[in-house]
């Protein structure tokens, strides 16, 4: 994603009703967020709808952003991810996701590999690497694919209690590591 200062400038202008800035903000951030959506939803049409809904929300609620929400990219990621999660949960009972989604470089990587593929090892990546492989796998899969505990049991062929424990302990370790 682009530099946070630039994103902040564009978001502030968006909050003032500047559509050009809003479009720039979209162009800078949406390719990454769209990729995240496709990975979560595994359906291009649904991903497009989620992106539209999320960015319409950004347009109407830009002025509600504040620094307690973290970086602008964090805020945008939350808006898109929560919409995608809602969509996944509402689809699951009646509408199985198809497999006809874009194959990206990230799809070819397992949850244990992809997080360290960046050129710079950032703080989060370093802390994820401190988790044991099972904890890391459970956390990355639930974040990247929106999997529930139950779905993680099927994916990892592990009991529900074990999955919950991996996630709980993994998150606790992550928090401790990030606080250092």
């Amino acid at each position, binding site marked *: *994603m682009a530099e946070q200062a630039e994103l902040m400038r564009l978001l502030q202008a968006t909050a003032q009703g500047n559509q050009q800035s809003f479009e720039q903000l979209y162009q800078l951030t949406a390719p990454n967020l769209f990729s995240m959506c496709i990975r979560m939803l595994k359906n291009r049409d649904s991903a497009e709808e989620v992106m539209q809904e999320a960015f319409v929300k950004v347009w109407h609620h830009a002025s509600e952003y504040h620094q307690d929400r973290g970086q602008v990219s964090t805020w945008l990621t939350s808006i898109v991810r929560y919409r995608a999660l809602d969509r996944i949960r509402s689809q699951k009972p009646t509408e199985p996701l198809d497999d006809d989604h874009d194959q990206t470089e990230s799809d070819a990587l397992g949850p244990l590999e992809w997080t360290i593929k960046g050129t710079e090892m950032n703080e989060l990546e370093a802390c994820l690497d401190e988790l044991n492989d099972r904890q890391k796998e459970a956390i990355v899969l639930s974040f990247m694919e929106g999997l529930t505990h139950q779905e993680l049991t099927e994916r990892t062929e592990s009991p529900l209690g074990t999955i919950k424990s991996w996630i709980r302990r993994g998150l606790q370790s992550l928090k401790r590591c990030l606080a250092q």
Partner: protein
Amino acid sequence: MNYLKPELLEHLAAEYVLGTLHGGARRRFEQLMMESYRIRSAVWEWEQHINPMANNIPDIPLPDSIWKGIQQRINPQDFAQAADKQTGWRSLFLWQSWGAVSTAFAIILALFISLQTPPKVDQLNQVAVFNNEQNEPLWLISSNTETGQFAIKPINAQAVAVDNKAFELWMLPTNGQPKSLGLMPVSGKKQEMVLSPQLLSVLQSTQGLAISLEPPGGSPTGLPTGPVVYQASIIEL
């Protein structure tokens, strides 16, 4: 359960952000977020911890259709004007009231939509349009008082969506209390249903519709519990 107990709060906030908190537990937690700054702060903190995980995903080129869809939703008046040129209803723009123009356009759009698929002209004999304060259409309602067919089409409702709240549609019969027609979709395709004979008979004595803001899942009492945020008259065709 004491949600403000630090360890529990921390855990729920983390699983909320991760997405593993789902269903009723997620909805309850969202309600608690509305009530407590401390809970919201815990969520924001976790968002800052783990959202950067998304940054390493390789970008995907954006199809033009996404931005066009966004523009259409944030500038519905431009969309309306473009559609007006296509349908040749220019005389409508002689009308002095923009509110009347947008309402009329929405009705035309409702007709257009309903005449597309399936092409049964007699299926539609009522429409209602919910507008925002700028008289831009948010939802189109169409119905047939003989067959009970009923459809809700969100136009730009996403723009007025409220986090952790639902829009519920009510019939306002001439006599008696409001009767719910269910929750309003804020996005997606036209939602169609067939009303029960009981609801259809209420609709036949109804001249107006209203939308109230309710908890997720709708009013717990069967009557509006939140503020009425939009109203619309039913127009007979």
